[in-house]
């Protein structure tokens, strides 16, 4: 009897390994191995055309520290995030709170605001490239001209180009966060809010003292996810400005792509990729520890 039981167990274990085999094998080959390789590449003088031209230690990282263009892309990526994240968070939270979750209007907004989320980034970027055309050719400038404002040549002027990509990105992804916040607002404990109202709390007071603290875990979570997304931006930039004008919208992923596949400096591109990896890793660790704390409160 005992022998049979352990045979069964062994059979189950074997089936288990067989079942996870495809996933784990793919994970090993397409995730773990490339991750190890990117670190190795970053210590090599490696070129797309000539292959590995030898181990060069930390040379790529030394170049990195002296590379003004790298710091420009790092700075641009941070500026992009500083534009996208607060705008996205404030707008989506305000909409979720204002609309509630179940009113008729909220339902319409829910479906409409989510359309850009499922649309490809490429399609969205193409359309917004037209909407942001300079002169009076673009619809956005046309609308501005109706109220007497002469719009800039958005995608070709320093400063405005970053503004334009930030706006199109925020509009593209806003729906996701609105829906997440609508769910969070729906889950606010009604008795606590009611108690606040009975105690005579005004609407702003209710928001700052009760709703906002209760929503904080969701807000932090959404914030980190949005920051990670902004750090990884590529298609919006590539298609709308191609990094320009004068590199003013060149971001980290664009720089990796550019170094690896345009100027063929694979080793150097790898060093930049390692920087991106470390940034995303740190953000993810923060995210996971926040989540653990959030679920601790839920329990």
């Amino acid at each position, binding site marked *: 009897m005992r022998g049979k039981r352990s045979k069964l167990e062994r*059979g*189950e*274990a*074997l*089936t*288990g390994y067989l*079942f*996870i085999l*495809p*996933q784990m094998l*793919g*994970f090993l*080959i*397409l*995730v773990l*191995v*490339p*991750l190890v*390789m*990117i670190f190795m590449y970053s210590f090599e003088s490696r070129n797309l055309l000539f292959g590995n031209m030898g181990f060069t230690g930390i040379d790529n990282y030394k170049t990195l520290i002296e590379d003004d263009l790298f710091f420009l892309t790092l700075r641009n990526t941070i500026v992009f995030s500083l534009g996208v994240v607060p705008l996205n968070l404030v707008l989506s939270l305000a*909409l979720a709170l204002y*609309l509630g979750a179940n009113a008729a209007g909220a339902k*319409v*907004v829910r479906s*409409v605001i*989510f*359309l850009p989320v*499922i*649309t*490809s980034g*490429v*399609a969205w970027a*193409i*359309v917004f490239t*037209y*909407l942001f*055309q300079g002169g009076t*050719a*673009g*619809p956005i400038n*046309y609308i501005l001209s109706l109220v007497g404002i002469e719009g800039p040549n958005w995608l070709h002027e320093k400063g405005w180009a970053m503004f334009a990509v930030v706006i199109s990105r925020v*509009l593209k992804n806003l*729906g*996701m*966060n609105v829906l*997440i916040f609508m769910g969070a607002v729906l889950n606010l404990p009604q008795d606590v809010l009611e108690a606040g109202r009975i105690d005579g709390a005004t609407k702003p007071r209710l928001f700052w003292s009760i709703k906002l603290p209760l929503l904080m875990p969701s807000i932090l979570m959404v914030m980190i996810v949005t920051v990670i997304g902004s750090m990884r931006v*590529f*298609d919006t930039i*590539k*298609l709308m400005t191609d990094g320009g004008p004068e590199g003013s919208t060149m971001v980290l992923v664009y720089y*990796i*792509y550019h170094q690896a*596949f345009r100027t063929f400096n*694979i080793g150097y591109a*790898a060093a930049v*990729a390692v920087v*991106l*990896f470390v940034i995303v*890793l740190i953000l*993810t660790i923060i995210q996971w520890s926040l989540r653990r704390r959030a679920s601790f409160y839920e329990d």
Partner: protein
Amino acid sequence: MKTDRNIAYNIIYYIVIAAIVVVFIYPFWWMVTNSLNNINEIFGKPTLLPKSWMWENYIEIFRVQPFARHYLNTVIVALLGTLGNVLVSALSGYAFARLRFPGRSALFILLLTALMMPIEVTIVPMYFMMNGIGANDTLVPLVLIPIFCSQGAFSAFLLRQHFITVPKELEEAARLDGLRPVGIFFRIMLPISVPVLSSAAILAFLSVWNMYLEPLVFVSSLDKFTLPLSLSNFNDTYGLPQWNLQLAATTLSVIPVMAFYLVFQNKISNAMVTSGMK
């Protein structure tokens, strides 16, 4: 007085809603109407309807580049990628949830690290790996990435969470009837999991349909392009940009996803929100 204020609030409420609808519908409206204009009419005073109703644009896009081929490529990649994603992750999700084997939780946590791995980081070495097996400039990497990279790990995570909630009695009964784990999986577990499997499938499909960096890196010949590459290609290859054609092609690439969304709205947005919080 009170009712006056209520009316005012209501009016503001509907103005806000109307404004949101306009802001989010207008880009699509603009795209569709201008896909029916000629190239000069696109820039100029915007109108609500197309000026010359050039349906030829929709024929012309198939002439200037192999757009039908690009469409087919995208459909093939999306179907294979989705199918593989769901099958592989259903197998592993079930094993991680229900089958006991040494190292189970450690391996699962290891797999979860794929969730945070940006493809932008690993794509450079992946390019060399694919080159090594002769898979560059084929659709193979575009199928493999959604199956095994972060999208695959996400599906495995989603399905494991689901299989954990399936009552154990179901398996016990099937086991007493003489079914082995493989039989239980295919004949019992998969059929009852169709709703969750379809959520995973929707997310995988959308991610493949919309991916841009991957084809940009792995694919170079025109007949291997997928839609996102094809759309951006109306711009440069033929000298002058063909704006109206680009918009017509973009419209055609967006329509199936839109139609799909309109039918399965809640399912899609709920699934996306789940993945957005991963």
